[in-house]
């Protein structure tokens, strides 16, 4: 199949890109999460004691890992695809017989790889502080890949609509980061007052973090099946939206 070569080419280029600039892509999340584990896990965590029946450091590891997967997948695709657009080398793909789906798969695949590499590094660092044995490894693996896919897609859509470098940092800073922090990375929503607990249930990231934590610890604030269904549906919707926009040439063709 000829599209296999095209897909490999985009994927290889994307993976090579973030590995080549690893001090900007892989190192920062490693340092930041290392600090989280040190401060929240070890220093503050000792005062907090248990959460959900686990030591605080064990409780936060899954959320911190998924948080880095979310931001890295998103940032990888939004910045790579937007630069491609900005430098006009997207035209190399548009003139070639590459179907829209292959372009999308290539960039999203690159974002997923970045998410998995960074997630793996963060997990390795967490092993220095915490002691974990995933109770449902399949749930861990599936939620990892699904979350990386979803946020790579979201980054792709952001890049399509972006017209400046400001536009690619607005969503990560003002939407993604708050939703992640309010999505129960550091606490169980059971600790929140009624209003905030119910409000939190509208945050999709809460479901992903809890399903991921369920994979590690076997506990969750929300139904795990609902979390998987939600992520699956969101992936479908965003994929469809991205394909329609590519077909129309929105943001790419004049």
């Amino acid at each position: 199949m000829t599209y296999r070569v095209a897909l490999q080419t985009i994927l290889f280029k994307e993976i090579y890109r973030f590995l080549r600039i690893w001090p900007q892509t892989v190192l920062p999340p490693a340092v930041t999460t290392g600090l989280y584990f040190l401060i929240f896990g070890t220093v503050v965590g000792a005062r907090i004691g248990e959460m959900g029946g686990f030591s605080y450091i064990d409780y936060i590891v899954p959320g911190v890992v998924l948080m880095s997967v979310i931001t890295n997948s998103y940032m990888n695709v939004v910045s790579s695809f937007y630069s491609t657009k900005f430098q006009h080398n997207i035209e190399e793909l548009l003139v070639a017989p590459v179907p829209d789906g292959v372009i999308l798969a290539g960039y999203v695949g690159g974002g997923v790889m970045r998410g998995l590499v960074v997630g793996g590094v963060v997990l390795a660092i967490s092993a220095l502080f915490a002691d974990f044995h995933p109770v449902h490894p399949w749930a861990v693996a599936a939620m990892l890949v699904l979350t990386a896919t979803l946020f790579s897609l979201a980054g792709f859509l952001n890049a399509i609509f972006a017209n400046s470098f400001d536009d690619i940092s607005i969503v990560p800073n003002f939407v993604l980061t708050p939703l992640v922090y309010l999505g129960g990375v550091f606490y169980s929503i059971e600790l929140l007052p009624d209003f905030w607990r119910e409000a939190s249930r509208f945050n999709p990231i809460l479901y992903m973090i809890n399903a991921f934590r369920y994979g590690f610890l076997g506990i969750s604030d929300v139904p795990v099946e609902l979390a998987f269904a939600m992520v699956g549906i969101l992936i479908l919707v965003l994929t469809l939206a991205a394909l329609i926009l590519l077909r129309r040439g929105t943001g790419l063709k004049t």
Partner: protein
Amino acid sequence: MTPALSIRDLRKTYRNGHEALKGIDLDVAAGDFFALLGPNGAGKSTTIGILSSLVTKGSGTVRIFGHDLDREREAAKRCLGLVPQEVNFNQFEKVIDVVINQAGYYGIPRREARRRAEECLTQLGLWDKRNTVSRQLSGGMKRRLMIARALVHRPRLLILDEPTAGVDIEIRRSMWALLRRINREGTTIILTTHYLEEAENLCRHIAIINHGRIVEHSDMASLLAKLEANAFILELRRPVSALPEVPGYRLELRGDRSVLATVPTELGVHGLFDALGQAGIEVASLRNAANRLEQLFVDMLESSEDDI
């Protein structure tokens, strides 16, 4: 034989309401070397953008080697190689990667892509630079890199949008030699330019576009023949302050003793000399107007201004 390119009633209005193409018809035969000539803003890049799927068209049909751009876009894309007006490769990539990746997008497996990249880069004199980061290339080299990239999938139709704009005369001439060779080896070439000399030197057929309309579409030889018969500079024996009206001819005083005369072929110069003689004006010498194509170009653009 299937024409390399066939365009019918192509129209494009940009989102800001600007009507860039107002119904273009264009035919380019397979094997031709074709010039699309026009001043800045005429619609050359818009036309080429539509052919290469970078600009969405308003209406009309485009066929590339018989493949309709709407119904058989991928087949059409495979026939076409594009050298755009502005640099559009990733400036952080190495020269060889720019070419190899492009081959990959066309489905050419990596090993074969590497072989072809070597072939194309060598042909363009860039093989020595293969490991240079493309940002560091000179302007002329960047242009050549884009040609190498456009040739890697061996397109039957090569389109170049102002390939020699802003490059110095030496590079321009070597690029002309290269394009002639590519054309001789069987690739149809369309180039846009606003250098008349370039079109005259390279191309067998020509279309002139202005304000989104084709104002001339013919072969270069008959265009030039038409011209050679037509524009003369007459040097007068004595200075004059005004010229008589001579029906059928157009006369324009340049200085006080030289006249630019546009002479319709069917009337010939004798009638003009007679008429001038009767007005007491003696012609000392006559020569062809210096830049014939230039004159024609200006005339055509002027006459196409009239119908806006």
